[in-house]
């Protein structure tokens, strides 16, 4: 577990300090069950087969109660985006999935972007009907690869055809459809294989695509295979080549890369995730979920992070007790805003930064910005912008090497951010 820099236990609601934070507009709901385990994943999830229906049901109920109570505590009645992720939400028995979504329905604002994650092999027409009835708008399908050897290597339980037909089903049912792919799988496949998969996905009519490099997490079976030398990760040049080829296909289909790993036809960007990348307040309910409440403008900038407990019996007994609350000092919160904002082509909203922290980002980061001026520009205006904003964003090549930029920013902001304050 991560140890917080400034552990601070806050009283559970009713809570006067809740007013210090901007009210959350996004809700994340975590369903910690999967029907099978993938060989690369270290995400918090339990095998659905190993958990009794009664305890799954208790988790669903506790999660709903928790979502309502966090919303009330921080002054929100309905959310403009909801994201139900996991785990695999569709691994829940139909009745429970129904109870969960129907329970969330009152929390959805009228124009709510409401996403659910699904696995290709657990997606059935009656589920899509349920999604419609409840008002869901988006389905995000974990495809990971369309290369059979790679699917086996990753320990995925579906094949490429199942994935494609699941996607078509979503598209045809009128959902904004997103797919995930993993790049850099140590299968020895030629570099154009990723572009190939991308092309087939886009042909299927999806609106949104995420591509992640495989990261080997310690403790996963895939990590073990690679450390034993049974599998070899493709080298940096080969990965770059396959990435470049895939980008070409995306361009051809008019997909725009709007974040490090995310592509969309313009207008189909994921609003929920854009919220994270602007570091707005959001609520996370369900075992292992995380909430962040950011400071109101003019309030000094301190934020609050709540990590939900992961132990199921503890969670169902009292999610509030099982949660860990950590105050994020203004300087750390400021860096987090930078870290998240520069992930997208919309970049950092300079007005928002100064309103939250009372300092100009262009002063706090003058050296880093100067050193990176070749990659920095005014950025695209964001889908969420109502009026023109002062923005600063990295260009595409800059986003490719974002970490370098962030390291420079980190050093500088920690030096320049005025000490003291309220943490």
């Amino acid at each position, binding site marked *: 577990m*991560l140890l*917080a820099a400034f552990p601070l236990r806050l009283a559970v609601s009713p809570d006067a300090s809740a007013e210090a934070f901007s009210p959350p507009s*996004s809700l*994340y709901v*975590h369903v910690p069950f999967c029907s099978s385990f993938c060989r690369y994943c270290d995400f918090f999830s339990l095998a659905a087969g190993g958990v009794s229906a009664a305890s799954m049901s208790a988790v669903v109920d506790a999660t709903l109660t928790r979502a309502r109570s966090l919303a009330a505590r921080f002054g929100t009645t309905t959310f403009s985006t909801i994201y139900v992720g996991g785990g695999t939400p569709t691994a829940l028995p139909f009745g429970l999935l129904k109870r969960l979504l129907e329970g969330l329905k009152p929390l959805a604002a009228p124009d709510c972007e409401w996403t659910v994650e699904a696995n290709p092999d657990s997606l059935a027409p009656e589920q899509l009907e349920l999604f419609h009835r409840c008002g869901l708008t988006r389905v995000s399908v974990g495809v990971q690869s369309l290369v059979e050897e790679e699917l086996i290597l990753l320990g995925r339980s579906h094949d490429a055809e199942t994935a494609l037909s699941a996607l078509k089903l979503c598209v045809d049912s009128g959902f904004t459809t997103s797919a995930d792919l993993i*790049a850099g799988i140590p299968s020895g496949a030629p570099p154009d294989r990723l572009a190939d998969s991308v092309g087939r996905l886009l042909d299927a009519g999806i609106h949104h695509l*995420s*591509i*992640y*490099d495989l*990261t080997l997490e310690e403790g996963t079976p895939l990590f073990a295979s690679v450390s034993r030398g049974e599998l070899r990760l493709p080298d*940096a*040049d080969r*990965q*770059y080549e396959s*990435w470049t080829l895939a980008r070409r296909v995306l361009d051809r289909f008019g997909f725009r890369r709007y974040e*490090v*790993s995310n592509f969309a036809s313009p207008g189909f960007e994921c609003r929920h*995730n854009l919220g*994270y990348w602007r*570091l707005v307040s*959001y609520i*996370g309910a369900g075992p*292992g*979920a*995380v*909430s*962040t409440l950011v400071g109101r403008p003019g309030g000094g900038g301190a934020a609050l*992070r709540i990590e939900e407990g992961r132990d199921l019996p503890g969670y169902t007994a009292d999610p509030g007790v099982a949660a860990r609350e*950590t105050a994020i000092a203004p300087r*750390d919160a400021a*860096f*987090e805003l930078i*870290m*998240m904002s520069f*992930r997208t082509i919309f970049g950092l909203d300079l007005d928002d930064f100064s309103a939250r922290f009372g300092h100009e980002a262009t002063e706090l980061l003058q050296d880093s910005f100067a050193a990176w001026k070749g990659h920095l520009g005014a950025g695209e205006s964001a889908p969420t912008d109502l009026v023109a904003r002062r923005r600063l964003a990295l260009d595409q*090549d800059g986003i*490719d*090497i*974002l*970490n*370098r930029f*962030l*390291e420079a920013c*980190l*050093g500088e902001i920690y030096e320049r951010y005025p000490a003291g304050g309220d943490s």
Partner: protein
Amino acid sequence: MMRDPALIRNFCIIAHIDHGKSTLADRFIEKARVIDARKMQDQMLDNMDIERERGITIKSQAVALEYEAKDGKTYTLNLVDTPGHVDFSYEVSRAISSCEGAILLIDATQGVEAQTLSNMYMALEHDLEIIPVINKIDMPAADPAEIRRQIERDLGLDPDGALEVSGRYGTGVDELFEAIVARIPAPKGLSADPLRALIFDSHYDPYRGVVVHLRVFDGSILPGQKIRLMSNGAEHEVEETGQFRIILSKTDGLPAGAVGYIIAGIKTVSDVRVGDTVTSADSPAAGALPGFREVKPVVFSSIYPMDAADYDELKVALEKLKLNDASLIYEKDNSVALGFGFRCGFLGLLHLEVVQERLEREYGQSIILTAPSVRYRLRLTTGETVFVDNPSDYPDPSRIEEAEEPYIKAQIITPLAYIGNLITLCVGKRGVQRSFTHLDEKRVELVFEMPLAEVLFDFYDKLKSTSRGYASFDYDIEDYKPTKLAKLDILINAKPVDAFSQLVYEPSSYDRAKMVCERLSNAIPRQQFKIPIQGSIGAKIIARETINPLRKDVLAKCYGGDISRKRKLLEKQKEGKKRLKMVGDVELPQEAFLAVLRTNEDDGNRS
């Protein structure tokens, strides 16, 4: 009370590496109950981290034992455990200067080896009484009868005087105690004479200043007494005297013949010089004790602080380390790439590594070392002769009439089975065979003449692997011989980095350049631009590698649940970058410098 010198015995344990000196010292410490039995551990006196990790002794270590002999009297035995590795023979020589006797330990399964002989000669030069002791007799392969033959034939000592022990199990140690009391002479000095004590070591205590380790030859030292250091006349008042009993143990004085320490409020580290004589300020002795032979470093390298701002801190650390490592020699140096640092002389490659590690661990220094070099002799066109060990001092080649490099006489003792491969190894290192002698049915002695520079570079590792660890190696610096020398420069992003320059044997310069460039290209992480790495001699590029630019990080997801983790990850990466050195606009990690420094040819890890 101060013990009568007649009841003192000062002796050291000397041997070839791994023959069991420190283990035998454990048995002495145990039997004399110096410390609580529960606190005993193996190789008790090897208390430095590096010693314990590597399983070898690096520093001589003294310990005082109270022993009640069969004659009913209680003796103070000062035992000094010494290192066996050839790089630390200076430690052995200083231990020998503080003793009247030596236990010459011989591993009953290995027999007489290179350092057995050279350490014995050192002890004989100082007229020490030598007790040959055959160790490890518990081992199935032990052959004490054969060792006795070697003692007579190879060492010229009386085999009947040899004792047999097992340092591991304590067998024969009681007899050894008695032999020490009976055979090693008591110290000769008189407590009434003017004080003369030899500083054989010292260390720095942050609270109490310099702790001086000394052997009193004449006179005695008492707390409160005013002492004078004879080399520089500095005077101090003795605050405390004591003995080494694993910890420092206070006494009410040190009589003639004693080995112990004094604390005299000395904060100026440079006042104390190992080898100096301490006398009394009120009634000084007429002349100083002989002191120690001059250290002759054979390997040179420059040490720079990772962060140029830490130069002063490094200087203080070196001064303090020098107190505890008299064989370290250094002077100020500077580099365009790295700023100010120190040119250091070492007794060998292992010594270099130990100094590096001690600076890092004991003194918390973050440092960079340049490639090790020998000292070359150059005859210039002007007729002048100069010595050069630092590539930055290398004159323009047109001014060099002739270059010479130091040669060694390498003595290798090996079981017969490995001679073929060992000869191939030495010939590949420009060695010329001088002799080949059968020591007995199983062992041979090979003598080669070869350039010292070749030994610095990947010789030990190869020797050990070729002989599966069985060959022992010793060398003497002989003479200078003509050579073809060239200065290899390394350019990173088209700029020469002086810290990477090295003096090389010209015919091998292409190979060396290629290897250095390859290693650097593996050790330097990709940066935002393409980085050429070139090796050149003069204006001629002889090797080239390229580090491709970093074009893309790992594309990792970062959503609402990942923010804290991601921030901490970046903080950690940033912390790691503190160990990067900016050279021009390229960030070089410490590994880049290590890659050049590393002297073994294959890219595997060092043992």
